[in-house]
């Protein structure tokens, strides 16, 4: 293949990979049953796999596919970043018109390694907080909690506005609402507490492109750091196959500033090279080639300055020890936080997750939140402490755990949410509802309301109604039906809280479960 064909091939693969990633993401709205694992990109993510396995102290079968990614890294170096990574693709596409090839700062390249080491040491200590920096989890969270809810608002707003005035568009709207809703789009509009924050963070990652191209990949991405470490000894490497005129054309097009051309020669840092192959067609003399194996240029008698090794980013023992100490310090701090002493009142975890060593298994990938049909599962703020930032909890005022659904446990790639059968899930206690009698309409306002009892999905009803004769403020005797929770039957699904017609906080709220031993 000619140099420009290689570049074209990379661009096509990159487009296909991004389309594939987003296709899988949209298809998640169909449900967890799929011939291709919907979490495929997470399964081939070595950072996720080894982080989760180290922290959970277990071999997670679904993640063993990452071994293939490791082999890939040892063969192709950082080709993942240039060819396959969907975030890398977005960063290539959403970029300033004229890329400045400037280096933000040489030593910043170390940041990604430091982050990786911190993640590694923290995982050894059973902590996965920084998994929020994995590019796939970052994209997934932004997709499910910010992008899709906003997209759905746009779609429904346009439909609502045009439905009465544009009958010719009705077949299109029917296609969207009948065929796409619940297959490519969420079944209902969902509302995410932290959507704005996730969008801001994602916007920030993109905006860094204006400081330097692929800023995220070059300086911050811990997954990029995994591949960069492998690239240092990878089989495929960019090389100069003959002497060059030092025109530096390659250096100007390189998006990651991996190439250095000086008067003395030309060198490529394989840890920075994402194998994008933009340099191949840029070189007027066809000097550069990607070759497997070998030590040196195939052309003999060339100046020794032609090399593929560059070592201006040396990681020292200092970095390793510093990272280890930082991890120990942070994890110790987390474990001395109030959230470690006592669960937050609103820490309602997905079914089966509460007693499942959850924070040591959850990679914050938001697959559960994406597949949850009611949108109740959301990245948390500080309900689980800083340690559990962006781990999923149920915001039972924004959705409920549907009695007919067990999807989150089926899709969770690490088993942090166990794959319960529907029957097991229906028995799994995720929280307990309590009524605020000071605000509940029949209790406080002497008027009928039975919504919580009506909605309670437990076959024998965990909410019951007591018919009570009371004297209303106007002196008249009225009968009201007061709801009462039977805590022993309540599983904390939260549909009562979600459907409570009060404005603001519901008069019935789901708290962190407190299972009691059987009576008597």
């Amino acid at each position, binding site marked *: 293949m000619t140099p420009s064909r290689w570049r074209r091939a990379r661009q096509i693969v990159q487009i296909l990979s991004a389309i594939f990633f987003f296709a899988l993401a949209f298809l998640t709205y169909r449900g967890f049953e799929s011939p291709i694992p919907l979490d495929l990109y997470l399964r081939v993510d070595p950072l996720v796999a080894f982080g989760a396995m180290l922290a959970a102290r277990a071999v997670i079968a679904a993640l063993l596919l990452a071994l293939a990614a490791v082999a890939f890294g040892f063969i192709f170096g950082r080709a993942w970043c240039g060819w396959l990574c969907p975030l890398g693709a977005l960063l290539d596409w959403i970029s300033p*018109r004229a890329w400045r090839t400037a280096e933000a700062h040489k030593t910043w390249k170390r940041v990604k390694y430091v982050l990786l080491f911190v993640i590694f040491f923290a995982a050894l200590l059973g902590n996965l907080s920084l998994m929020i920096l994995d590019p796939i989890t970052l994209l997934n969270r932004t997709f499910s909690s910010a992008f899709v809810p906003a997209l759905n*608002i*746009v779609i*429904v*707003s*346009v*439909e*609502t*506005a045009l*439905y*009465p005035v544009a009958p010719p568009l009705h077949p299109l*709207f029917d296609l969207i*609402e*009948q065929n796409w*809703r*619940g297959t490519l789009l969420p*079944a*209902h*509009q969902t509302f995410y507490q932290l959507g704005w924050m996730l969008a801001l963070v994602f916007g920030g990652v993109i905006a860094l492109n204006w400081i330097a191209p692929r800023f995220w990949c070059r300086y911050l991405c811990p997954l990029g750091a995994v591949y960069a470490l492998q690239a240092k000894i990878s089989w495929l490497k960019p090389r100069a196959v003959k002497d060059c005129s030092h025109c530096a054309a390659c250096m100007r097009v390189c998006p990651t500033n991996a190439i250095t051309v000086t008067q003395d020669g030309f060198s490529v840092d394989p840890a920075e090279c994402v194998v994008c192959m933009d340099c191949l067609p840029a070189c007027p003399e066809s000097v550069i080639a990607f070759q497997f194996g070998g030590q040196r240029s195939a052309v003999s008698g060339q100046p020794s300055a032609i090399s593929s090794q560059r070592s201006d980013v040396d990681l020292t023992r200092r970095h390793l020890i510093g990272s280890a100490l930082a991890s120990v310090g942070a994890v110790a701090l987390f474990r001395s936080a109030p959230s470690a002493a006592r669960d937050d009142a609103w820490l309602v975890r997905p079914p089966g997750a509460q007693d499942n060593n959850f924070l040591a298994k959850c990679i914050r990938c938001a697959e559960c939140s994406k597949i949850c*049909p009611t949108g109740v599962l959301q990245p948390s703020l500080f309900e689980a402490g800083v340690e559990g930032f962006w781990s999923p909890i149920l915001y039972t005022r924004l959705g*409920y755990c*549907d*009695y*007919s*659904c067990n999807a989150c446990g089926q899709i969770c790639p690490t088993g942090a949410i166990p794959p319960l059968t529907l029957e097991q899930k229906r028995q799994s206690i995720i929280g307990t509802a309590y009524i605020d009698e000071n605000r509940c*309409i029949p209790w406080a*306002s*002497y*008027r*009928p*309301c*039975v*919504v919580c*009892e*009506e*909605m*309670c*999905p*437990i*076959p*024998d*009803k965990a909410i019951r*109604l007591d018919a009570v004769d009371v004297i*209303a403020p*106007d002196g*008249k005797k*009225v009968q009201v*039906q007061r709801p009462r929770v039977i805590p022993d039957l309540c599983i904390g699904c939260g*549909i009562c809280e979600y*459907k409570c*017609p009060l404005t603001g906080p519901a008069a019935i709220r789901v708290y962190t479960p407190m299972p009691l031993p059987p009576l008597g």
Partner: protein
Amino acid sequence: MLSRREFIRRSILYSLALASGNALASCAPPAPTATPLPPTSAPTIAPTATALAPTAAPTATRVVNVTAVPLPTMTATPAAPIAGEPYLAVARGASPAAITRAVVDALGGIKKFVKPGNDVIIKPNICNAQNTFEYASTTNPEVVAELVKLCLEAGAKRVRVMDQPFSGTATAAYAKSGIRDAVEKVGGEMEVMSSAKYVTVNFPATARDLKSWKIYQDILKADVVINVPIAKHHGGAKLTLAMKGLMGVITNPGGIHTALDQRIADLNTVIKPTLNIIDSVRALMNHGPTGGNLRDVKMMNTLIASHDPVATDAYAAQILFDKKPQDIAYIKFGAEMGLGRHDFGNVRIKEVTV
């Protein structure tokens, strides 16, 4: 010439502006959210007519004519029955499909209701995605499918079946209830109710509490709407039957619960199905409307049909649940408001057994 980049930039900007305009427009204050709570003392009207059609043991086809004093509280003429046909029909039998056909035939046949080329909507109760139809929380799929067949036989252009479940997704609920398979097999369409299709409707003066609410526009526009609820216990309204089933075609049904009985009756001032058929092949006798216990399910093998939802509900309350219709507040309100009758003086009731 615009550069490609400039073109993309401008189109994104314009569409964002458009979208945000629409989003803002749809954020306009929804009409009736600030409805004050109704007075605690509901208007009291002395129940008068207690003599109701006695129900005989199922026999072969027979026509019952009962004479009783009509309720003085009825302020308007009830919707008229099909001329010369019974006001209400009851069919009993072991085959849900056969009694569906029989109950419609008893009212004069499907052709009295569905004309060739009609756009028909059948509205069963598919309230959640958690139970199969054996648990009697959703309408019997055979009944719904037979209705689809009847409408198609009568020449309907299109027969759609829809309901908005209050929990779970419509897609999951349609599948779990067995209704999707049954309906699609006989040529009907399942429609997932789209949030873009609800329109604000102002209620007539007969509605005592609701001033306006959002209702699914296709229900208002269709040529024929057949309401096929399943008979169930309900903690607040006591029973959920035909009148209450219409809560499945409005937005925010939870929002009407602070005056549930009155507002159910009010809904019936706007939504007037062509035909109401109460499915009590199985009835849910307790822990409704969600269900989940087979011991709460009672086999009744009965369908009750009329153009008058107050009448179907009154009759069902009495013969299925042994309750006086005037004790079910929304039935009483419906009769007071002239939406139908809950007494059966001078009406023809046809009972068939197949």
